[in-house]
């Protein structure tokens, strides 16, 4: 693993994590994190779409006229999202129903557009694909962390398997939208504290 590969992975998953560092993709992070399984499927969907969109954008980057690149990116992204949507409908209809409109809304997930624009536009296909995987994984991991807490407290279960037993009184608030806001805020708060120290040590200040 060379240096660049390593840095792409750590940047995507940790240092430049889409959710808690760049505050991107928040809408879907709030919406689908009430159950672990929803978050997992959403995360996998996003990894797929980001990776392949970046790959395609990167392949076409030398032939794409600069001023229409956004149009081209949107087209590519939506094509992959529709593929995911069809795939879920055909093979996992229950999942497709649970995620509802959020699968289609992967198109508007800023992470994909952001990575295509800032990374795939300037880098060769191999790295672009890897960057897509890493960014998507960063997103998926945060979603799973939030969903873990929400499902555990809200339903007393993990991936639908009851953990806390029958006597557990579910925190209804956790599975309602406010639960998502509280959890996301806590995640961002913690990460801010972790990164604060680092940027104070001579890092660039915004």
């Amino acid at each position, binding site marked *: 693993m060379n240096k660049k590969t390593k840095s792409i992975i750590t940047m995507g998953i940790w240092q430049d994590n889409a959710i808690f560092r760049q505050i991107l993709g928040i809408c879907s992070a709030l919406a689908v994190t*009430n*159950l672990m399984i929803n978050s997992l499927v959403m995360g996998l969907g996003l990894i797929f779409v980001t990776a392949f969109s970046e790959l395609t954008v990167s392949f*076409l980057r030398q*032939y*794409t*006229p*600069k*001023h*229409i690149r956004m*149009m*081209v990116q949107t*087209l*590519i992204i939506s*094509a992959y999202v*529709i*593929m995911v949507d*069809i*795939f879920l*409908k*055909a*093979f996992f*209809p229950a999942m497709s*129903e649970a995620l*509802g409109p959020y699968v289609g809304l992967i198109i508007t997930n800023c992470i994909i557009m952001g990575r295509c624009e800032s990374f795939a536009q300037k880098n060769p296909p191999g790295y672009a694909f890897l960057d897509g995987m890493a960014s998507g994984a960063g997103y998926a991991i945060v979603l799973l962390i939030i969903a873990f807490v929400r499902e555990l407290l*809200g*339903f007393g279960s993990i991936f639908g398997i009851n953990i806390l037993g029958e006597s557990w009184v*579910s925190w*209804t608030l956790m*599975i*309602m939208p406010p639960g998502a806001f509280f959890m996301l805020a806590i995640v961002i708060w913690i990460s801010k504290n972790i990164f604060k120290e680092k940027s104070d040590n001579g890092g660039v200040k915004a």
Partner: protein
Amino acid sequence: MAKKKKVLYPVVFMIIITVVFTSVLAIINEVSAERIQQQSKLKEQSKVLYAFNIEYGETGAEIIRQYNQFIEERKADNQTYYVRKSNDDITGYAFKIEGAGLWGGIEAILAFNQDFSNLTGVSFLNHSETPGLGGRIDEEWFQEQFRDISLDVNSTDPYLIFKPSTGGNVDTISGATSTSKAVLNIFNQNIEVILTETKGDVLDE
């Protein structure tokens, strides 16, 4: 690089890339269309079986076999309804109904016995109620409550009443009052329509 400043190139490029991606998607869609339709049909069939209180297997093939054995689809006024048969005798009817829930539409199946004196059962096809609260309407304990409830057209009371009111026959979902009320309203209204209007048409055939 000079090429990129021209007007024609971006247009041609965009057209080509659009055609390529659209064709790929069209092919995928074509290939999977049948499967998707099967899946949604399978879901509907299992819900009809559930409403009729017919036990069905896990796999798609078993559901289809059970369905074909017991259920016959008929049409009246362009609306499909389901007839339950056992050895050529009709033992029940089921109808697809819909109405407004708390957040969105609710689609359900109502099943009756052969003379419409009993509600055999209900099942929910589609809804968008709050997960964990109103969304619990499709849990088994809630749907099971609607088994074998006797219906009296001449009574002035609603057909379904929440406990603990007098004559109550079903429980609400605690924490989901609006959804529970909406569901009961949809059921009561549709049962009324079915018993007073649809029943006549269906039994005449």
